[in-house]
């Protein structure tokens, strides 16, 4: 477990075939090799703002390093994982279609487990020293899974609740209060149906609030104690469900669908895995200007978004350049701009030059965004097995209406 960075680098250098794979420690050669390459970045394509940002990163990559970036817009990240899996099954160990994937959690665990990833590379990137490893442990721990440098972080995310202040003057600050509020306002709250990522995250968030010993969540699920440990969660849900939107007979499919319900005035409280989403959506005219955000007093779950490079990527050098570019202070500051994305930076502001720090200080957080100090504790993501088990259980209880 305790393997030094040098050992990992050494292991990777000896294990990799010499000819095709670039070496991130020899950055000059990487840059040289990358020039003229086209990097196919497979990323969820459901949000035009994110697509615009990726296109902007592409412009930067081209003008700074001569690397062309093409976004392959996915309906689900798993599509890209499945693609690499089938390439491996077909024996295509070089020249793969996927150069870079926006990834985390389950998808990362699956690819890591099957040896489908290039690297380690993340901690050899020139911009890595700027990353706030100490203050944001999620940059190296993806759902309790050590990243081992097989993926590089580029944005922090934290669960925040979004509420319409015109209808909800004081938003519920915890699981118990949310339940009371929902019972008092039936039909005005819902959550995406698990196994959707955000829906499952909501269940984990509630679990954090009702479980006796939260530390259990950082261990893999213990089948022996699972039922007893999660009983409060199911009891809470049983009470909530009749008061849900559509009495729990239908659920939105995912985060955007949930956001749309808030925008259409069908619900009064929603939530997102992006602290700046509400402000950005208000600025774009997609949400009423009365929407505000809050977090729970015990903290909300936070995690990081990463990029990874498949083992058989055709343009690994170009992908490395893009991964490093994503850690560039100018790029990070743009991502944090609520008018652009409103994603929180992964960088340690103290490690930046004054000029770069000023870029972040100049950002207007936006009307609905909490200041970093008001975001409270970022709870670590539970072990990935919790997400799978809870989702499965939810489907059994609510997902196949008997």
């Amino acid at each position, binding site marked *: 477990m305790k393997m030094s960075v040098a050992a990992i680098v050494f292991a990777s250098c000896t294990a990799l075939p010499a000819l095709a794979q670039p070496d991130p420690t020899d950055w000059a050669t990487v840059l040289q090799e990358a020039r003229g390459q086209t990097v196919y970045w*497979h990323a*969820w*394509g*459901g*949000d*035009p703002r994110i*697509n615009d940002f990726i*296109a902007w990163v592409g412009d930067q990559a081209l003008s700074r390093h001569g690397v062309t970036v*093409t976004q*392959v*817009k996915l*309906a689900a*990240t*798993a*599509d*890209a*994982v*499945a*693609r690499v899996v*089938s*390439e491996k*099954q*077909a*024996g*295509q160990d070089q020249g793969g*279609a*996927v150069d870079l994937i926006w990834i985390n959690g*389950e*998808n990362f665990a*699956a690819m890591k487990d*099957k040896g489908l990833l290039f690297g380690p590379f993340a901690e050899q990137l020139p911009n890595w020293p700027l990353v706030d490893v100490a203050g944001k442990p999620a940059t190296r721990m993806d759902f309790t899974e050590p990243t081992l440098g097989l993926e590089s972080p580029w944005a922090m995310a934290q669960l925040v609740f979004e509420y319409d202040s015109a209808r909800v003057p004081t938003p519920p600050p915890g699981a118990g209060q949310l339940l009371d509020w929902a019972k008092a306002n*039936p*039909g005005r709250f819902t959550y995406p*149906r698990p*196994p959707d990522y955000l829906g499952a995250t909501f269940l984990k968030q509630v679990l954090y609030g009702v479980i006796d010993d939260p530390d259990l969540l950082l261990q893999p699920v213990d089948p022996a104690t699972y039922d007893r440990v999660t009983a409060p969660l199911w009891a809470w849900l049983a009470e909530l469900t009749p008061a849900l939107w*559509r*009495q729990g*007979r*239908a*659920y939105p499919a*995912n985060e*955007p*669908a949930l*956001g*749309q*319900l808030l*925008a*259409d*005035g*069908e619900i009064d409280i929603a939530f997102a895995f992006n602290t700046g989403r509400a402000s950005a959506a208000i600025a774009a*005219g*997609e949400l*009423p200007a009365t929407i505000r955000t809050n977090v729970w007093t015990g903290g909300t779950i936070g995690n990081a978004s990463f990029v990874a490079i498949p083992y058989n990527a055709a343009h690994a050098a170009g992908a490395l350049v893009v991964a490093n570019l994503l850690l560039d202070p100018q790029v990070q500051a743009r991502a944090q701009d609520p008018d652009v994305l409103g994603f929180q930076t992964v960088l340690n502001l103290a490690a930046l030059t004054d000029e770069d720090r000023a870029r972040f200080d100049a950002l207007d957080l936006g009307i609905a965004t909490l200041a970093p100090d008001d975001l409270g504790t970022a709870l670590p993501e539970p072990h990935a097995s919790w997400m*799978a088990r809870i989702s499965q259980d939810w*489907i*059994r209880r609510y*997902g*196949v*209406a*008997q």
Partner: protein
Amino acid sequence: MTADGALRFAPRLTLLLMAVPVIAGLAGTLRPAFEAGSVARLLDWPGLPRAMALSMGTGIASTVLALALTLGLVAALQGGRLFTLILRLLSPLLAVPHAAAALGLAFLLAPSGWIARALSPWATGWTQPPDLLILNDPAGLALTAGLVLKEVPFLLLILIAALPQADAPRRLMLMASLGYGRVAGWMLSVLPAVWPQMRPAVYAVLAYSMTAVDMAIVLGPALPPTLSAQLVLWMTSPDLSIHPVAAAGALVQLGLVLAALALLRGAETGLARLGCRLALTGIRGIRADRWLAPVVGGAGLLVVLLMAGSLAGLALWSFAGPWVFPDAWPQHLELDAWARAAPGLGPAALETLLLAALSTALATGLVLSCLEAEARFGLKPGGGALWLLWLPLIMPQVAFLPGLAELALRTGAEGSTGAVAAAHLVFVLPYVFLSLAAPWRAWDPRLAVAGAALGATPGRIFWRLRLPMLLRPILTAAAVGFAVSVGQYLPTLLIGGGRVTTLTTEAVALSSGGNRRIIGTYAMLQLALPLLAFALALALPAALFRNRTGMRPGA
């Protein structure tokens, strides 16, 4: 002689092009179904019975409703002004891609949708959307409605294309002179003549409705979803161990479709017998006309209004500024969404056009060769051959495309425009064949004899007589093929390796994000391309034969 030889080979080549991808893909995809435990795990899924029932129920209900409405419209109203109006408004809707239609309809009907907004608060008293379960209802009613809306234009087009060969006006006149009501007369005298030509289209609609994925995801229930929607969820799950279960599910889905087709076949026979018995009773069905005409007319108009409203809603969203409940209209209109989408729209539209043109040209050429070979050498496809042609329409796409993508990967073909066009061909060709075979075969054979007796070679008869006389159905079939190609999502995504970007792949990717404004822009363009093809298919023969009364539809 060599041309003759090539023509003789055309049917076999075509079947090969249809069968090999489907069978190879099927083998590749279904192989995991036979892994130990796959079937048992599928059976363990508590949602299975309900998902199967939903697939079957929504598929059959929507097919029956769409068919009844189509037949009713033609039987009760053809020739009248209302019919012409409905037909004119419905035919362009054939080109609407399923996903766009579903999203538009969802916005129209939702408790916070356009209809509710237009009526609130003045008529309804709602200042916030009511908590009503209209979309995604557990019984699949919204999904059924969406499928009916989408299939009526298709069935109507097929029926209208088949009618001229049935000599409907004279049959109807005869029935009327015998004292029969209009609808009863049509059902007893015209329907039996057009049904053989319609049958394949109805089977295709049934198979499609049972396995539609995009519509089921937007409008259908989710707890559980229909079987095909669940299969896609499993197949795209990051949990790779669930993939064999999906394969087993695909096998079940195949069985369901076959069972439903058998059921339909049985119903056909039963109804035919009933019809014969009814005809013998001499019941004239006069009274039925009085209530049927307004009912089907109203239903037809409703279909038109719902579809038009869905599309208008999407179009409006693409220009909308802030637009909150219960405003009936956005606060202001703007071009932001179009400006944001513009850089991506151009290349995607071009790629879409290229793929559709390639696959449609190839499909039309092959189908014409097959039909001409049939006419010249009597190489009529047997039952087995027809089934092969049908396979791509009956197979759930998720059941054979992953295997096919793997095959393309092995041969190094994936990711190229050519490979994607070839994959489109598999879906385009059957539709072109289905649309064209009936009018082609119904062409008066005496025209060919007359040509031959005048000394014309088979080639001359083909190019100078058959082709120009059948130009309208040929172009219509090509336009159908074009629209099918434009709407392809899974084949483009999987065979293209994500590197072939069309309007549809972009629109579906965006639809997962629910941004109605951007979806609106892509849906509008996605609609414009096939619309253009259909407009050409109508305008070209009309312009070429503007002085030929005998070439008008229905002449």
